């Protein structure tokens, strides 16, 4: 079956409409069918509609994404209560171990992000993976740092990614690969992202799942949850009326 590809992390400058348009068109040309654009939590609904129109013109599906950077678990819970129903994708950048643990076990979190520059702050270890495997969070790997870094810092990042993907595989935590691109030059085809995953020993099939199956699954699950017909997992309103 033909795969549908998704890039869940595009970070264009939202003030620059031309750049947004260029990046969405490029994503379409590269073979993606869905892109998630990171927007600030207080982003106005009219602006989201503008983004939707841009994507519609490029025949792309748009998902809104928010990146949370809480300093404490309490801050994370507060932000999740406030923003979960407003965005289709919620990613948490884990800057402390407590936040990472809370994010991994919370079923409202979709993606776990870790610092690509400081390997001491990459908290995706066995305990984190076990918590994530019981929740719904996926490990997100951005390709931008892999492209931008050079020398020892890239070597260290590759080594961390190799260890983390092995742990994720062991515990059945899905991996999602995204471009993290802020510029169209940093965007790559899905097959090229999968090829880059060779560098940290993620197999071909797992790498392709990380750019197609896993992100699409997150989107399907979240759209179902955000739909007004959703009641609980597996239960949804089929019809409303007096005779029901």
């Amino acid at each position, binding site marked *: 079956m033909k795969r549908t590809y998704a890039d869940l992390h595009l970070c264009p400058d939202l003030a620059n409409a031309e750049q947004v348009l260029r990046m969405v068109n490029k994503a379409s040309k590269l073979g993606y069918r869905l892109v998630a654009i990171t927007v600030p939590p207080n982003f106005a609904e009219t602006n989201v509609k503008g983004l939707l129109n841009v994507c519609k013109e490029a025949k792309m599906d748009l998902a809104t994404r928010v990146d949370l950077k809480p300093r404490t678990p309490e801050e994370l819970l507060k932000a999740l209560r406030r923003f979960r129903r407003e965005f289709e994708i919620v990613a948490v950048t884990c800057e402390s171990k407590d936040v990472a643990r809370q994010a991994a076990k919370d079923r409202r979190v979709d993606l776990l992000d870790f610092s690509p520059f400081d390997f001491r702050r990459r908290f995706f270890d066995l305990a984190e993976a076990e918590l994530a495997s019981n929740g719904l969070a996926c490990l997100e790997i951005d390709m931008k740092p892999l492209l931008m870094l050079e020398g020892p810092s890239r070597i260290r990042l590759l080594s961390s990614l190799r260890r983390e993907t092995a742990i994720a595989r062991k515990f059945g935590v899905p991996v999602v690969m995204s471009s993290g691109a802020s510029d169209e030059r940093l965007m790559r085809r899905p097959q090229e992202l999968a090829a880059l995953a060779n*560098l940290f020993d993620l197999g071909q099939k797992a790498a392709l799942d990380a750019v197609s199956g896993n992100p699409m699954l997150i989107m399907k699950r979240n759209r179902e949850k955000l739909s007004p017909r959703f009641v609980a997992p597996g239960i949804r309103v089929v019809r409303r009326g007096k005779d029901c």
Partner: protein
Amino acid sequence: MLKRAKRRYLALEIGCEEPIDSGELMDAVWNAVMKLYGEYGASRAGLSMIDYDAERRFLVIRTAHTAVEMVRTALASITRIGNKPVAIHVLAVSGTIKALYKKIKP
């Protein structure tokens, strides 16, 4: 008996607004392979340039069939050539030049 070396041809699209000459381009490809896989890896890739159309920003290279994934990874890792920001995308891979041109024919 020594096995016949199988080759693969890759059609590449060069994403760059400024002109780049073929020498610079191939140097960048070689450097990317060497950076990621070292001299041993680069020696197994058997890279060579077949065709370059500077106007259409279109390049065809040849590599050993065992090194296609390695070359694909190295190409994806190229972000600049000199001071010019660049992205190289693989359009098609084929076993013969004829089939390659057939694949990418608009």
